[in-house]
């Protein structure tokens, strides 16, 4: 279907984008790679009246390392994460997870800031940022603020971003200690039916598509921290969660998958 009509504005800087958002209110949306937003507009699930195109802000396409922190510009594309030698060395989970998003053509367009702002509980990269204990830098009319990834995802496709804020940077700690990402789907290219990200040998564990947001598996993390085996820790993966039921899997099957893949991810990350 053809999307509903909208007015198109090209942002010349992040500040300009924020000013345009402030001017147009909550009917405006930022357009980066568009690979989440445009399909939603085509299905008329989203009908913004103004699109602010931030896709040309090449100064927000970078990956830098400084004092153990990796800073990634919000407009960095998934394919750039995937092929980054810096990430391969210093935070291989980000590169590896990026390589599992969609297919190559999708990765050429999709951006890290875009996938976080979209806050789809079934997306891969938000879970990686969450497990790594990352930070999201949002720019608004009064400047920048840092939001911990653990505080960022507030509901189904909802984030802590205000209507007049945009993500400008994502920070993750440099980390190549035991990590793993497990993505279960039935068809190539699909979203995860369930996914599990493990960072820092089980200090950070997050779940994909097990609730209305990407989730930290706090009970698993606590069990690993207290010396539990991977099997005992993974048994807690679905504790207290209300995963969705859909055509691919009902809630009980998702709970089962979460336990199985958490154990596999912990084992692969070096937790016995």
């Amino acid at each position, binding site marked *: 279907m053809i999307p*509903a009509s909208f007015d198109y504005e090209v942002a010349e800087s992040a500040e300009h984008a924020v000013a345009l958002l402030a001017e147009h209110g909550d009917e405006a949306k930022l357009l980066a790679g568009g690979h989440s937003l445009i399909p939603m507009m085509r299905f008329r699930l989203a009908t913004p009246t103004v699109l602010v195109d931030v896709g040309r802000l090449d100064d927000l396409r970078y990956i830098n390392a400084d004092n153990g922190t990796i800073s990634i510009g919000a407009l960095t594309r998934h394919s750039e994460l995937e092929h980054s030698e810096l990430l391969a060395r210093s935070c291989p989970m980000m590169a590896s997870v990026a390589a599992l998003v969609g*297919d*190559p053509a999708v990765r050429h367009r999709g951006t890290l800031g875009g996938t976080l702002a979209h806050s789809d509980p079934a997306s891969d990269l938000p879970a990686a940022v969450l497990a790594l204990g990352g930070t999201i830098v949002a720019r608004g009319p009064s400047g920048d603020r840092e939001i911990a990834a653990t505080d960022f995802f507030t509901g189904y496709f909802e984030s802590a971003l205000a209507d007049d804020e945009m993500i400008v940077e994502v920070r993750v700690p440099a980390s190549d200690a035991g990590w793993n990402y497990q993505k279960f789907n039935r068809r190539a290219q699909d979203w995860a039916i369930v996914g599990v990200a493990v960072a820092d040998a089980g200090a950070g564990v997050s779940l994909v598509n097990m609730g209305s947001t990407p989730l930290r598996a706090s009970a698993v993390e606590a069990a690993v921290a207290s010396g539990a085996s991977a099997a005992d820790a993974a048994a807690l993966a679905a504790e207290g969660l209300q995963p969705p039921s859909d055509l691919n899997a009902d809630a009980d099957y998702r709970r089962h998958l979460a336990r199985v893949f958490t154990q596999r991810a912990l084992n692969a990350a070096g937790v016995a």
Partner: protein
Amino acid sequence: MESITLAVNGTERNLEVEPRTLLVHALRDDLRLTGTNIGCDSSSCGACTVLINGQSAKSCTMFAVQADGADITTIEGVADSDGTMHPMQQAFHEHHALQCGYCTPGMVMAAISLVEEYPDLDDQGVRHGLEGNLCRCTGYQNIVNAVLAVAGSGSKGSES
């Protein structure tokens, strides 16, 4: 309406488009470049794959205004002007990598981008790399063979 300039297959084209005009519609309806097909219309099938500044992209999931100023290559632009086929087209021909042909323009464009992006492709790499391009004749084996021939891996792929 927005005024945009696209460098399509090496030729600058000026267009007036609605912001909501998808790139695939601008290519097919405004520029009459109908080699780029529309399949699923939801970025799953890859029939509409073109190159944007040399990289594969699904033209059904991009507004034409987003491509303003970009170099775009469609299937019409990959052969030489004297009609010599692109090596990927030639490989598809030699390996009979098509049945009904509907997915073929998108497959060829995705494959050209794939061998450029991943220099050490093997059978699995080609299969993963083309997972965003669906062939509903399920003629994948010969497509994989064709792409591997261009990638120069020497492997002809498994007989799965």
